[in-house]
């Protein structure tokens, strides 16, 4: 007999799209990360961390945002370390949208589709109707500003930091300072792709909800991965 359990609709939708099954190869982790991991192991860093992640890494994240964009976020209350940018994106979509609400994406459409499907949400056809506007540092600054000009006063902006050197950030504009959630990857650029480390930095109004959702999803991010990422960021 074929073994099968009945699947929910969202699961049937996503399973037909499959999932990446070919691991890519990557080199050995950078020496500083290896050394930091060995030290963390010697200290017994094998337990759950604080659910938002280890504080020194959260501080590195906020320093980075401040240095590059002049944007200020509180590392203690409003920053969360995630299992890669994948988890940050997923948590943002689940927490910032209610089922049925829509998201307008200026980038990362393919990656967002799955998170939206799980939420029971869809892409918006126009920025005006969207509850969330999704932007990426990969996008042209002019395009980002144009989309920001079209969203409603209550919409939230999610800004995904990619491997670019652009210095525009929506929170630099006063109107978006308190409603932009920044997410990003701390691993790939550091040669730690398989270690799965990313972050969420949020304005006070949405920070607690995002942190609680992350905790409900994975409790915390892999302890050793956090120390490895910290070592690489500190060296920079």
């Amino acid at each position, binding site marked *: *007999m074929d*073994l*099968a*359990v*009945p*699947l*929910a609709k*969202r*699961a*049937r939708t*996503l*399973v037909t799209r*499959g*999932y*990446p*099954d070919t*691991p*890519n*190869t*990557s080199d*050995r982790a950078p020496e500083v990360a*290896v050394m930091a*991991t*060995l030290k963390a*192991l010697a200290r*017994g860093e*094998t*337990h*759950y*961390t604080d*659910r938002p992640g280890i504080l020194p890494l959260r501080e590195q994240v906020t320093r980075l945002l401040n240095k590059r964009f002049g944007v200020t976020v509180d590392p203690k209350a409003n920053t969360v370390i*995630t*299992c*890669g940018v*994948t*988890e940050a994106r*997923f948590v943002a979509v*689940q927490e910032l949208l209610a*089922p049925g609400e829509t998201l307008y994406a200026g980038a990362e459409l393919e*990656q967002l589709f*799955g998170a939206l*499907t*799980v939420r*029971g949400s869809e892409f918006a056809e126009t920025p005006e109707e969207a509850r969330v506007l999704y932007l990426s540092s990969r996008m042209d600054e002019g395009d980002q500003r144009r989309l920001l000009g079209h969203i409603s006063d209550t919409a939230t902006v999610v800004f995904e930091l990619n491997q670019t050197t652009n210095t525009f950030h929506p929170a630099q504009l006063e109107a978006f300072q308190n409603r932009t959630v920044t997410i990003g990857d701390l691993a790939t650029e550091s040669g730690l*792709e*398989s*270690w*799965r480390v990313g972050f969420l930095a949020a304005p006070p109004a949405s920070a607690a909800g995002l942190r*609680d*959702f992350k*905790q*409900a*999803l*994975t*409790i915390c*991010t*892999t*302890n*050793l*991965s956090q120390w490895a990422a910290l070592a690489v960021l500190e060296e920079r």
Partner: protein
Amino acid sequence: MNEVLNTLAAIQQLEGAKLRYALMDLAKEVPDAIALGRGDPDLDTPAFIVQAAREALTGPLPVAPVAGLPELREAVAANALRDHGLEQGSENALITTGGQEGLFLVMSTLLEPGDEILVPDPRYTSYDQAIQHTGATSVSVPTYAEDGFDLRPEEVEKRLTPNTKALLLVTPSNPTGGVITQATAERLAELASKHNFVIISDEIYGKFVWEPHTHVSVASLPGMRERTVTLSGFSKAYAMTGWRVGYILAPENAVRAMAAIKTHTTGPVATLSQRAALAAAHGDDACVREFRHIYAERRALVAQGLSHMGLGYSDPRGGFFFWADASSTGLRALELSYLLLKEARVLVFPGTAFGESWSDYLRITTLQPTEVLQEAVSRMTPVVERYAREAAARH
């Protein structure tokens, strides 16, 4: 007392996981507090597992497939056969970012809005969020101290409707320490076949069932493999909470669907963690047997301490927790745990963090070295005794 009342008023608004975390945050402000709250084993990850991670660090660590390293999926499936006589292939195994992600994936994969899932009460409240997120409804099934918190099949049967999609079992249970007995499991299996629902069996504490009780893995009962999703992980079994590796065993169609959703939740589990988990899975579990001795000694100590304080409890049949009846203090659980933190500097969780109606109960872990547990008991005893005396005097 005002500060106490203000803090209490604030945390009284919280429930489930949020309440647990608020108390953990409060405990951080109490110097030299003893944490008997979070289910995080204090023991070190066994040396041979740490050594495997050290060795893995000397070579490349490529990104793993979303469903997990093939050799880890295979090892997890092989151990299901070794430990529970449960025949599964690697295609039935999915590696998750801790059991926690597993429970989210299971619910997202199985439940539609309008579905009902039966959940024994009290419960690990992280399930609440995972269930709510799907739009399905949890239907609470009571469990009783006089049964050692085993589930009563008739209580399940009474609550079945045409919308019942699944029954959740957590065996051994967090928070009660109850286990599902063979007889109960068989009755539940019959009900599942007859009424066509899925059993989701969280067996994350399955290596810690205390004699004379034994662990029953529901999927290994005749006819149940195709209607059971088993959830487990390395966190509790091998003191590996920080590594974030869990797993699910399920019919292949569910594993594929969960992997598809997992692509979007967190992607693959950290490769280094999976390599460490692989060492654990390939081991002979001598470390688990050692852990069991350690936990047995601690259990005896806490049991004696609770009896001495005059708190009621039924002997845990499995897992790391005591579920103690504190009604003798005349205080509600939340207030009592708050006062224990302030006055005895010991963090325990109130029963209400595991179900609204459990305001007479405390959940107390055994996850500290014996001397620390001893100290916790000596700090708690005079405080509990004083409140119990005051309560008796009022009556």
